[in-house]
């Protein structure tokens, strides 16, 4: 009994030492490309850009990139919905013209906020969501479609843009386990 406990403690100590050494020496295999693992969980227009911009940038640096699109984030790779992502003025105190929440809920306010952001993006010559998805596919970014979300929300494979991998959290975590940077956005 005592021996078993000591063995566990020793094993734990070895693991910790290995981790400390790994941290001290940097990455285990410097020849391996760096890897970025993103979780895209938001289905708004303003929520779609950060993961897509980070993915395009990381791919430009020669990194491997994977994005796990889950819950409302799945709309970003939904054939129909990714062209209709919106900015919500309700509960958003960062609007350039501060809109009282009650007015933000009026008909047309969401469309107005969305049109405004699309205008900014166009004026800044930034790609739209569809163009960012093209860039992601061209650069070999892995687009994971969360299968649980598909089941919960009744989304079929034919509803998604081409080039996505339908996967559960396990497959994504297997990819993310070797990531140098992991972000939930």
């Amino acid at each position, binding site marked *: 009994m005592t021996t078993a406990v000591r063995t566990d403690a020793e094993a734990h100590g070895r693991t910790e030492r290995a981790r400390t050494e790994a941290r001290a020496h940097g990455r285990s295999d410097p020849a391996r490309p760096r890897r970025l693992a993103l979780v895209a969980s938001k289905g708004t227009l303003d929520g779609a850009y950060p993961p897509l911009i980070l993915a395009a940038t990381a791919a430009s*640096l020669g990194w491997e990139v994977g994005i796990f699109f889950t819950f409302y984030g799945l709309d970003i790779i939904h054939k129909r919905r990714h062209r209709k992502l919106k900015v919500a003025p309700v509960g958003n105190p960062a609007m350039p013209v501060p809109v009282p929440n009650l007015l933000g809920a009026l008909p047309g306010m969401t469309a107005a906020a969305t049109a405004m952001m699309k205008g900014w993006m166009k004026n800044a010559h930034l790609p739209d969501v569809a163009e960012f998805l093209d860039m992601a596919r061209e650069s070999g970014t892995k687009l994971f479609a969360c299968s649980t979300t598909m089941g919960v929300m009744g989304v079929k494979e034919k509803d998604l843009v081409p080039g996505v991998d339908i996967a559960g959290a396990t497959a994504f975590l297997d990819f993310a386990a070797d990531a140098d940077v992991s972000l939930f956005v």
Partner: protein
Amino acid sequence: MSDFTADSELDCKGLLCPLPVYRTSQAMGRLAPGQVLKVECTDPGSLADFPAFARQRGHALLSASALDGVQVFYLRKEAA
């Protein structure tokens, strides 16, 4: 004026992150090792981004300068 001769030039003026680095990455892919790319940018973030890009990609950032809101970078492609 610059002491470097560019084999290729890329105009990224008016573009914001991630486009300058994205297009530079594509342009570097078309160069042979040893060749030099000149990039012009107006995104103020470029001054921080291009040294990081060169470090990550293993390219040599020969020169970085800014004049009148335009940043000019000379990057040399290193052998893979």
